[in-house]
Structures are given as structure tokens and as C-alpha cells.
């Protein structure tokens, strides 16, 4: 199903049509949005570099992670970033979104570090995120720089619409997205949204503006919102490893195509995570209370500390020595409480 999404983005827009736009939305209950975003990004990049897509360039607008993170990610997925600077450019809205550093440097109180002042070939720093029209112009300029003028198109990836909404109003963000969609040279556009950071109206607006909505939902809904309950805990834990991938396509014939997939396409990760799972009743006999956190911590670690593209390799190294499913029932070292009736000891 991710293939159909990537295919639609790859094929791009027809003449006179708005560019296809994808919203990837997730929530804390099923926080895999970034994995999907990274997957789509790497797929589209490889299509672009192989010349198989309508668009000839990609502009990545980086709000929540630095551009070097994305370049690293693409490199880890096997995409040659060094030679692809003619095709992939990043717009850096991460290092200095409001232009504070440059203002501090001007006042002389702040010595900019050398690596920050060096502008790499593939990234451009944008310092004025409050003004969506300037952002629009920068994106278009960058895109045109990649593909030239005329009829050649480029794609746009925005890593976090949440960050944009922090700085600018809903209507200006929607204006930017719809202007990009209707620009002659934009082939496709996609963005990530964490839906629980906003009111429902924001999600509704972004769904209105997009032609495909990929939502990540938890497989099991917890009974209530409380997290202290042990059963809910394991459910939540389960939800952090598996989820439901729900996609709605607005097709050209005016109909809506709905596809649902019941586990995410993180097959490698899934296998490893499965091994990490500690079933709820198991930990009672383990004597190792910390094990229940294992699955989540390895996930959290891999998300924040390392680039996601390296997840597969990272997971295997962290795996050693942790998280095996130990079946106490069948094994030799029987725990004292498991089978016996404690009252058997009584002599009456």
C-alpha cells in the first residue's frame, strides 16, 4: 500500500490539475508517522534519481530535524547524496527559523560556530518562518534552481506542518500548501502531521487540502485513557509496535479509495520488535521488572538518538542480551509459585 502512495507521488500531476498531495498523520497512540515519511522520502528520491518520476528534483523543507539528518537518512538507504545535490535540495528551517542567531551575531554578543556559518551545497538556511509567502518564494526558487524554468517539475516534502503552524496562522499555511499544489512546476507534495497536537479543525483542513491521507491508527484501542492499568499498558506497548495503516485516496473519477493495512511495513523492525515483546503475565515470574520497558526504550532510542534509516542495523546491535521470550512454563527451572498449590504444604 505504501507502494501505491509512492507511485501516485511519482506519477505526479496532469496538465491543468493540482499536484497530488499526501498528508501523513499520526498520533501518540501510534507514533509511526515519521517512519512513513522517511520511507516515502527515500522512495521518491530514488525514483527521482533514477529518472523514473515526473519530477526532476526534490525540495525537502526541514523544520523538525536538521538537513544533515535527512541527507544521512538517504545515504543509509543507499541513495547517493553527494552526487545528487543537483536533484535534492533542503531548505533549512531548523537551525535558525526566526533569525535569532543572525541577529545575535550582529550585536556581537554571539560568536557563530564555524560549522554553522559554512553553507553546504545542498542546504539553504531560511530565517523567516513567520512569513509563509517568503517561505513559498524560497521553496519555489529552490525548486526552480534544481530543475530550471519551463515545464520541468519538482516535488516538495515538508517534514512537519506542526512546526509551520506554530509560527503562522492556519490560513497562511493553507495558502502556502494550496499555492504549491497549484503551481505549474510542482509535481507532488507531501507532509507530516501529528494530529493530536492540534484541534480537529486543523486536521480537517489539511485533509481537505490533500488528495491522499495516510493515517496511522493503533490496532487496539485502550479501554480508557488511564495508563496505570497493566492491561492497558501492554496494549499501549503493542500499539507502539504495530499499527493500522489507513489510506484514503481521492481519485480522479471523483470517488474515494480506502485501503487499510493491519500492520506496518516495517518488516525487519517488526521481527525484531516482536522478539522484544514481553507478554504481560510473563514478567511476574521473571524477577526482572525492567523488562517491560524494553520494547519501548529501544524504539525511543532509535528514534531520537540515531537516524531512522539506520534503524535496522541499530536494532540488531541493541538486541543482544535483551528481550528474549523466556518460557518458564516448560523449562526446568520451575518457579515455586507456578504450578503448585501452596496449600499442599499444610498438614492438618
Amino acid at each position: 500500500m505504501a507502494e501505491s502512495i509512492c507511485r501516485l507521488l511519482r506519477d505526479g500531476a496532469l496538465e491543468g490539475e493540482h499536484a497530488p498531495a499526501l498528508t501523513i498523520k499520526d498520533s501518540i497512540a501510534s507514533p509511526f508517522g515519521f517512519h512513513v515519511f522517511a520511507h516515502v522520502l527515500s522512495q521518491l528520491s530514488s525514483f527521482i534519481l533514477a529518472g523514473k518520476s515526473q519530477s526532476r528534483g526534490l525540495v525537502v523543507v526541514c523544520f523538525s530535524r536538521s538537513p544533515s539528518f535527512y541527507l544521512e537518512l538517504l545515504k543509509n538507504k543507499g541513495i547517493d547524496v553527494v552526487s545528487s545535490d543537483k536533484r535534492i535540495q533542503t531548505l533549512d528551517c531548523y537551525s535558525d527559523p526566526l533569525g535569532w542567531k543572525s541577529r545575535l551575531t550582529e550585536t556581537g554578543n554571539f560568536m557563530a560556530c564555524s560549522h554553522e556559518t559554512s553553507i553546504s551545497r545542498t542546504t539553504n538556511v531560511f530565517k523567516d518562518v513567520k512569513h509563509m509567502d517568503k517561505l513559498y518564494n524560497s521553496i519555489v526558487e529552490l525548486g526552480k534552481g534544481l530543475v530550471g524554468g519551463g515545464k520541468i517539475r519538482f516535488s516538495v516534502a515538508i517534514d512537519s506542518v506542526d512546526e509551520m503552524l506554530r509560527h503562522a496562522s492556519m490560513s497562511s499555511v493553507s495558502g502556502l500548501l494550496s499555492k504549491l499544489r497549484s503551481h505549474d512546476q510542482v509535481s507532488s507534495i507531501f507532509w507530516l502531521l501529528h494530529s493530536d497536537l492540534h484541534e480537529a479543525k486543523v486536521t480537517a483542513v489539511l485533509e481537505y487540502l490533500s488528495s491522499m491521507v495516510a493515517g496511522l491508527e493503533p490496532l487496539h484501542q485502550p479501554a480508557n485513557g488511564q495508563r496505570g492499568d497493566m492491561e492497558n499498558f501492554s496494549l499501549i506497548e503493542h500499539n507502539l509496535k504495530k499499527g493500522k495503516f489507513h489510506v484514503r485516496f481521492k481519485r480522479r473519477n471523483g470517488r474515494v479509495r480506502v485501503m487499510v493495512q493491519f500492520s506496518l511495513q516495517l518488516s525487519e523492525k517488526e521481527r525484531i520488535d516482536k522478539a522484544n515483546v514481553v507478554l504481560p503475565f510473563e514478567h511476574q515470574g521473571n524477577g526482572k521488572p525492567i523488562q517491560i520497558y524494553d520494547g519501548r526504550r529501544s524504539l525511543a532510542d532509535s528514534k531520537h538518538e540515531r537516524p531512522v534509516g539506520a534503524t535496522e542495523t541499530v536494532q540488531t546491535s541493541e538486541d543482544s542480551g535483551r528481550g528474549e521470550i523466556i518460557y518458564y512454563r516448560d523449562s526446568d527451572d520451575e518457579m515455586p509459585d507456578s504450578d503448585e498449590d501452596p496449600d499442599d504444604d499444610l498438614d492438618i
Partner: protein
Amino acid sequence: MAAAKTRASSFSRNLSAAAPSQGPGLKCGPNGLVFLSSGIPDLDKILGGGFPLGSLVMVMEDAEAPHHMLLLRNFMAQGLVHNQPLLYASPARDPRGFLGTLPSPAASKDNKSYETDPDQSKNLQEKGLRIAWQYKKYFGENQLNFDGQKGSLSLDGKHEYSNEFDLRKPLDRHFLNRQHVDCVSIQDSPDLSVLRDRCSTFSSQFPRNDGSVSCAGRIAIQSFCAPQCAYSNMEWDMLSFIRSLKSMVRSSNSVAIITFPPSLLSPSFCKRWQHMADTLLSVKAIPDEDKDLAQLLTGYQEMVGFLNVHKVARINTQVPVILEATTFSIKLQKRRYLVLECLNQAPVDGSSGTSYGTSGSCSGSSKAGNLDF
């Protein structure tokens, strides 16, 4: 002298208003109403003649499908064909571009060939539903269509009241080059004053008086609360704009149609907007490749969406309209002509004996089955 005066009533029949000569594209209706066509003959029939002058039509969009554009296109094209001035507002940068997608009227002989039900509809039209009168109810023709069945397909005169539009053929340029097509982009305006002024000047061109209507105007506003419009979070202002538009239109010979996506409004405002409308329609997308729906509905393959009629304008009367059916499927016949067909309820008991849907079903389909819609 107390001559026996014939008792003259103080009311004298205003004969001039009884049969005024209407301009092209206008039709007289009951209660002193004058209708103009929506551009979709089926919709005119459902609404009892068309959109009455002075009414506000609102269409609730479905964010997932652009069917409201089909309604707008037909509405606008019909107005241009009848030489009725048009004001079009949309959140696009260049609304004029949309005019290029307006359909052209189909050749009139195509009006009668309903391919899906060749024998029945042809017979009925030829015999004027006199012999086959008992099939009237299956065709959703309600009593409101006082002009008779041929009224909306009137062939007398050069202009038909309501044209079938061929969505694959664009409208001739010469219709668009006339002066009376005005476009407004509502994207960048910080508030609604510009749009309000434009609507006001437009509708003042057709003041309503007791004389006959010579010319009527059409106002079409697309996606009124679209998120890229700067005023889109000013909910009370938008509501007051609608209110003032309604009053402008009431005192002039024009019809305004506003489409809006209800999912982008807060629920209370959504309700208020719905109450503002004289005629309220909504369009809905249908899921693609849905096997259950394909079994349930005949003709699923040709359907593009659903149209619901929530409210029909009742001006000058207290009598409400109760439609036999309110949900219609939107189909593109031969991928060109927009038709609306009603969905029948499935027969209650499918197992025993007679089922209603076998002959003359409303959907006009010749397929008969247990669950025939």
C-alpha cells in the same frame, strides 16, 4: 342615485402579471415565482422547476470529491447560454481559468436518448405519460412540475429553458467574452467587504419590481470557507455576509449559489449556515471498488457520487415541499451528461413473491434483482 352598481371588489386582477413575457431561460411558477434553470434538467424536475429568483442556494461539499464543481459548472454554463450575467467568486488565484472548464450545451436531440432505459422512457415521452400513467411515480416526477412533463424540455422557441450539458465539450469562447461575466478571487482579501460590494453592485443591476422580469443574474461563490482565504476563521463575519447576500438576492432578480465544505466549520456555524439557505443540497463521494455497495445499488459502476436535497426553496408560500426521495445518485451518462437518479428503498421482504423493483424502477435500469434500487 343608488344605482345598483355591480359589486366591484376592491381587488382587481393584475392581468399583466399573470403571463408576463419572460426573458429567455426564465419560467413562471406558482405563487408568483419565476424560476431559472440549474443547468441540470433532472435537478430542475426534482426542485419543481428550478431555482426561484431571489433565493439562496447552498451546496455542502464533500472534502473528498469535487462534485460540487459539476453543479457549479452546469449552473454557470446555463446562465451564459441564456445570456444571464454571472458573477463568479472562488478562492483560486485566477478564477477566470475555471470558466474554461464550463461545458457546452449538447445537441438537443440527445436530450431524449436515455440509453439506460431506451424503451420505457421513449414511449413515455412520446405518449406524454398518458397511457403509461401508472409509471409516473417511478420516474420521480412530482406534482410540483405543473408545467407538465415537457415543460423543462420545452422545444418551443429558440431557447430551451434547461439544457443538457456535455461535460466533455467546452463552452464556446464567445459566450465567455461578453462583458457580463465577472470574476472575483476571494483568496487574498482580508475581509469580506470587497466581495460584499461586488455582489451588491451586481445584484443592483436586476432590481425587482412588479413588472415582468427581463433579465436575471446569477452569483456563484465556490468553496466559501476555504482555508486559504484570509477571512476563513472569522465565522461571524462569514455568516453576516451570507445574511446580507440573501437580502441582496431577495430584492433583486437573481439567484446566488454558495458551495462550502461543512467539515471546515465548527458544528454550530455549520448548522447556522444550513438554516440560512433557501435551497440546501449536499454532495457526497462514494467509495471506489466497494463490493458491498456494488451489490446494493444497481448502476454503481456509473455513479460518481450522491446528491441529497435537504431543503427546497419555498418563497411566498407556507406549504412545505415533501419530496418522495431526497437522495439521488449522480451519474455521468456516456461520461458526458449529468443525470440524477433516485435510489429506491429495497423491497422489505425479498424472499416471498412479488418484489416492487422489477419493472419501471426509478433508477431506470433494466436490471431486475431482489435488491433493486
